[in-house]
């Protein structure tokens, strides 16, 4: 079965299709990530993140280009973001890739990707505060107790999270 057919099956909720895609492309994706990051553990993390995004974007995937190209774009951009975080982006050493329809598809999802990148950067405590407050409806006091923080710390952290996410929205064109 072709990769694009597997993506179509995944879009219909068949997670076995994801397993097959992982089986086929994980090694190459790891090789690509390692060559950019020069760090095996980080590369493994980025590849897992890339497959998670393949799953999250399964309904947006267009079958008019190769899945391998799409995955390469995802992995490359995740690795570049990771290098930016470490402020050590060796731009000259990155392999040049021409714009493709896979790239175009990626950038159409850019705003969502940027939000995911920002959320990924939050510390585990901040992630717990965000979901506890916005999804589970816990009070500041309950969150403070659960996270071992003071009430002012909870308020300040949530204020910062809100600002980070909002500034990311403003940065987007």
């Amino acid at each position: 079965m072709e990769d694009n057919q597997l993506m179509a099956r995944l879009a219909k909720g068949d997670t076995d299709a994801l397993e097959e895609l992982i089986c086929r492309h994980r090694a190459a994706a790891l090789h690509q990530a390692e060559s950019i990051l020069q760090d095996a553990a980080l590369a493994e993390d980025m590849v897992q993140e890339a497959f998670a995004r393949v799953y999250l974007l399964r309904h947006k995937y267009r079958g008019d280009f190769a899945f391998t190209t799409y995955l390469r774009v995802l992995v490359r951009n995740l690795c570049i973001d990771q290098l930016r975080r470490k402020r050590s982006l060796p731009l000259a050493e990155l392999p040049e890739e021409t714009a493709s329809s896979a790239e175009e598809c990626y950038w159409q999802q850019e705003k969502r990707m940027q939000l995911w990148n920002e959320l990924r950067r939050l510390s585990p405590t901040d992630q717990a505060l965000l979901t506890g407050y916005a999804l589970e409806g816990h009070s500041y006091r309950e969150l403070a107790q659960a996270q071992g923080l003071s009430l002012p710390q909870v308020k300040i952290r949530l204020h910062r999270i809100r600002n980070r996410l909002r500034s990311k929205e403003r940065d987007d064109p």
Partner: protein
Amino acid sequence: MMKDYTQSVLQRANEMQRLEAAAMALPQGGTTAFRAGWAAVLAALIALIPSISAAQMMI
């Protein structure tokens, strides 16, 4: 083995989806939240005053 890996990927995707939903549901702060933030900072600073005074007395 690959099954476990796929499960980890799916779990990671679900966590990301949950965080995204939280980010979308997070109420916009505005001036009130800004004031609340500063009020919290001031409250924390004021709470320090007695201990600072006590420390000065000790000196």
